């Protein structure tokens, strides 16, 4: 297929006012150009700025990309030729986008190294060796589509329910296209099962307040914030959005500095920034919240449905404080401070999911209601209404995988993000036909019969909804660089497949998807020029007014979390967490992220197991030693980092390393903490419970190749180096 055909497919729209952009991005709203720049049209030394969507995580940050001339060497007729192309030099946040506001995180910056990754696939591949070994050989698109169509026809004839589509796509045009494709085939809806998707936060908001999306926390205007289990500055819903809000919360209001108390069983980025950290025993968030609810109930109970007030009423504060491992007087002080604050806010999340996390999030919703924080400035704001059918259903697909005959994988890497004990590797190996759309050979594509590489998100067209939005908004990306390799947009591949299997199907264009959100009078050209459309946030209700919807009476109980493994044999808790550098592992093939020092351990090119000082002393472990973490379901070996702020008895490890297959920078490096987890699923959403596995620790030897940028913690005493 020629490039022109590809361009036709995207239905690229032109704007009358587009011209060459000059200067830096001081006035980017006027300079953004949504046009595709042909390699023949790029002018030496000139820069252009184009709007785009960051695909680094599900937050959905709008970015702007700096486009300039570049040169690459290609081989044609056994001759090496230099080719001038238009290439992206830098990404910045799109200042027009209320999520990024012109800012961008480290992982977002590094998306360029995904685009120009040396391990990106140059075209389709077919499997030549055993499944899981990543023995793959190139083939043509025509041949690949024929093979895929033939197998899809067979699966469809036998049983359309045996077709399984697993996608990591967030709400937007990709998810809508997949839904329509599966409908055309008569197959069941797609499954989404990402660790970084946070389904529990959405579920709790629905249960308590009837909201269909994650609540929006107006951190910027809050005065006193209690974070519970949500690492909102690091691995949570929208790190750039909340970090921007945090800056304002601390020093953006003359004479007002917000205070943060963070309750979490790991010393996260948020805990490090907080004024006070309450180390919680793993999985006791609901106890803390229930005790606070009990203490704040006096005189406020009319804010809650009576059955909920009764649950809080029945809590024994001292017993709850003991379960959390927090001093009861300290807890009473926090309750008093929350109650006395003009704008208190509880931000609860499940950065580390426990079996009882939903109860905690529901309790937090009611606590915000008790405090009168719902629907007022500096409180919890209602999320924008999400149009139906835009988001793929969060589903634990493992049962369906066993029966599946034909599996599509779009952006998902279940061979990495699910524990080995779930049988994911055996199940993937048993699937008759596995088609991956991954632009790289990752852990799951290694099992694929066919890899039909998608464009990189920076080359593609999309409309998608941000994870956190108080007002209706949609991010729109139109292609502005020609694809670097012989890749095809997955939407296009699905259209071609549907045609070959005679299923009536048309992909959902970004424009059609955006229409579900954007009012009809908004010109599309302007939306593509700005990189999206964002409604003015409706003014939140004035203080004191009741929230627009009466709260629902959702059942929650103050229960203990469940853990796999006996305490006698496996004395330690184990908490894998989303890392700053790699999120759920997807950033590990980006060399800038590999050499980004870990914020706590300063580790580069590998991630250590974080061990508390007492456990380390008991086992004679020092930073840099090689240790083995043994769970009832497997073991891993990694270097140790003796973490000054780790809770005694709780091991933590960032997710990201330990890929079997993920290109030269990630393959075979370090260990994947998810791999050794027990197959425990949260009961209401089916989400993987990251914190439900007990482990034991063994010291193996003195040296394990821990690479640190700043090997020694620079100050051990008080901060008095000046």
């Amino acid at each position, binding site marked *: 297929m020629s490039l022109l055909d590809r361009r036709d497919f995207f239905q690229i729209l032109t704007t009358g006012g587009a011209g060459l952009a*000059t200067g*830096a991005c001081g006035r980017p709203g006027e300079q953004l150009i949504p046009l595709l720049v042909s390699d023949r049209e790029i002018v030496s030394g000139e820069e252009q700025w184009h709007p785009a969507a960051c695909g680094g995580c599900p937050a959905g940050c709008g970015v702007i990309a700096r486009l*300039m*001339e*570049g040169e*690459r*060497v290609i081989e044609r007729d056994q001759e090496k030729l230099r080719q001038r192309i238009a*290439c992206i*030099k*830098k990404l*910045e946040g799109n200042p027009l986008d209320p999520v990024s506001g012109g*800012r961008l*995180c*480290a992982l*977002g*910056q*590094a998306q*360029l*190294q995904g685009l120009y*990754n*040396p391990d990106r696939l140059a075209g389709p591949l077919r499997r030549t060796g055993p499944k899981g070994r990543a023995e793959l050989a190139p083939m043509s698109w025509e041949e690949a589509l024929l093979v895929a169509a033939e197998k899809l026809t067979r699966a469809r004839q036998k049983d359309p329910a045996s077709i399984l589509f697993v996608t990591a796509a967030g709400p937007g045009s990709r998810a809508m296209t997949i839904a329509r494709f599966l409908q055309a085939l008569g197959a069941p809806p797609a499954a989404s099962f990402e660790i970084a998707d946070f389904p529990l936060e959405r579920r709790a908001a629905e249960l308590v307040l009837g909201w269909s999306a994650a609540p929006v926390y107006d951190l910027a205007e809050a005065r006193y914030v209690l974070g519970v289990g949500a690492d909102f500055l*690091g691995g949570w819903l929208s*790190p*750039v959005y909340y*970090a921007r809000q945090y*800056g304002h919360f*601390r020093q*953006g209001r003359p004479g*007002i*500095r917000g205070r943060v108390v963070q309750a979490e069983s790991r*010393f996260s*980025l948020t805990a*490090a*920034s907080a004024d006070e950290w309450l180390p919680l025993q793993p999985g006791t968030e609901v106890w803390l919240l229930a005790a606070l609810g009990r203490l704040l109930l006096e005189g406020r109970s009319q804010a809650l449905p009576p059955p909920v007030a009764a649950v809080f009423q029945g809590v024994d504060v001292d017993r709850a404080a003991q379960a959390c491992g927090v001093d009861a007087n300290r807890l009473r002080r926090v309750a008093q401070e929350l109650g*006395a*604050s003009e704008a208190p806010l509880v931000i609860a999340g499940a950065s580390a999911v426990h079996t009882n996390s939903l109860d905690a999030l529901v309790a937090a919703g009611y606590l915000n209601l008790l405090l009168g924080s719902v629907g007022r400035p500096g409180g919890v704001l209602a999320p924008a209404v999400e149009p139906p059918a835009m988001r793929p259903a969060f589903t634990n697909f493992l049962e369906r995988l066993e029966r599946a005959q034909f599996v599509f994988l779009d952006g998902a890497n279940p061979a990495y993000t699910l524990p080995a004990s779930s049988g994911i590797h055996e199940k993937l190996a048993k699937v008759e036909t596995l088609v991956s759309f991954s632009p790289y050979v990752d852990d799951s594509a290694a099992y694929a019969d066919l890899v039909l590489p998608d464009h990189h998100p920076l080359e593609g067209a999309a409309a998608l909804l941000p994870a956190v939005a108080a007002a209706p908004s949609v991010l729109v990306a139109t292609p502005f660089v020609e694809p*670097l390799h012989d890749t095809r947009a997955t939407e296009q591949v699905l259209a071609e497949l549907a045609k070959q299997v005679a299923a009536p199907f048309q992909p959902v264009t970004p424009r059609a998807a955006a229409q579900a959100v954007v009012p009809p009078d908004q010109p599309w050209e302007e939306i593509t020029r700005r990189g999206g459309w964002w409604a003015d946030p409706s003014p939140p209700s004035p203080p004191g007014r009741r929230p627009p919807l009466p709260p629902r009476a959702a059942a929650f109980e103050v229960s203990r979390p469940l853990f796999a493994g006996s305490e006698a044999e496996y004395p330690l808790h184990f908490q894998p967490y989303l890392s*700053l550098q790699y999120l759920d592992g997807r950033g590990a093939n980006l060399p*800038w992220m590999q*050499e*980004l*020092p870990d*914020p*706590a351990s*300063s580790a580069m*090119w590998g991630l250590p197991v974080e061990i508390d*000082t007492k456990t380390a002393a008991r086992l004679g472990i020092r930073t840099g030693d090689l240790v083995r973490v043994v769970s009832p379901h497997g073991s891993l070996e990694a270097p140790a980092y003796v973490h*000054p*702020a780790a809770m*005694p008895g709780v091991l933590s490890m960032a997710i990201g390393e330990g890929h079997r297959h993920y290109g*030269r920078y990630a393959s075979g490096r370090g260990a994947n903490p998810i791999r050794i987890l027990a197959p425990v699923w949260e009961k209401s959403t089916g989400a993987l419970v990251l914190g439900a596995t007990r482990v034991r620790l063994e010291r193996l030897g003195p040296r394990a*190749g821990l*690479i640190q*940028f*700043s090997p020694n913690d*620079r*100050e051990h005493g008080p*901060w008095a*180096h*000046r």
Partner: protein
Amino acid sequence: MEHRWAMAIDLDRCTGCEACVAACHAENNLPLSTPAEAAKGRAAHWIRVDRYWEGEFPDVKLKYMPVLCQHCDDAPCEPVCPVYATYHNPEGLNVQVYNRCVGTRYCGNNCPYSVRFFNWFEPRWEAPLDLQLNPDVAVRMGGVMEKCTFCIQRIQRVKRDAKEEGRRPQDGEVQPACAQSCPAEAITFGDLNDPESRVSRQASAGRARRLLEELGTKPKVFYLQRVTQALPAK
């Protein structure tokens, strides 16, 4: 001196997220390390986020502090260079002339902030990673020292554009890559010669301190101290 460029970093806003570190790599063509080189301490970050631990569990604190070249007015790196590769430019920037550097590393040895990096090898980007390289910034050859330039290429561009338009650069118009990316808006850059500039006001604010000020290096990076308040915000 027409301008006197300086930076203020508000540690009360900084979350330690290291967006600045990645943005600096993207803007300034920093050499990619390998695990073997990084293990020998040869990875380069023109800006890093230092971490300072205080106290013991459970009353433990971690304070983050982004550290980059402090562009000292009395820079210890400058007088020791035998070939004048590192010098003070008229706008107060501590500048490194790569093709003059002979690699004695005296400057790195004399810098109290450990912000200078030596290119032990020719830098290498596996194709097509090289397509990302910023054409506004020279790729440094093996054998020379390098360090933060305050994104001098961005300063020059703003000055050029302002000159073409017959005006002075406006406050906030020059944004080094680190400042531009910072989600918490902790980094401010500007001209100390303009008393009304945001950086001038921050530099004279009560929370402003300079790193290792007692050495007399007169750094031009001002750190606004993190607030440790005893009383909660109402």
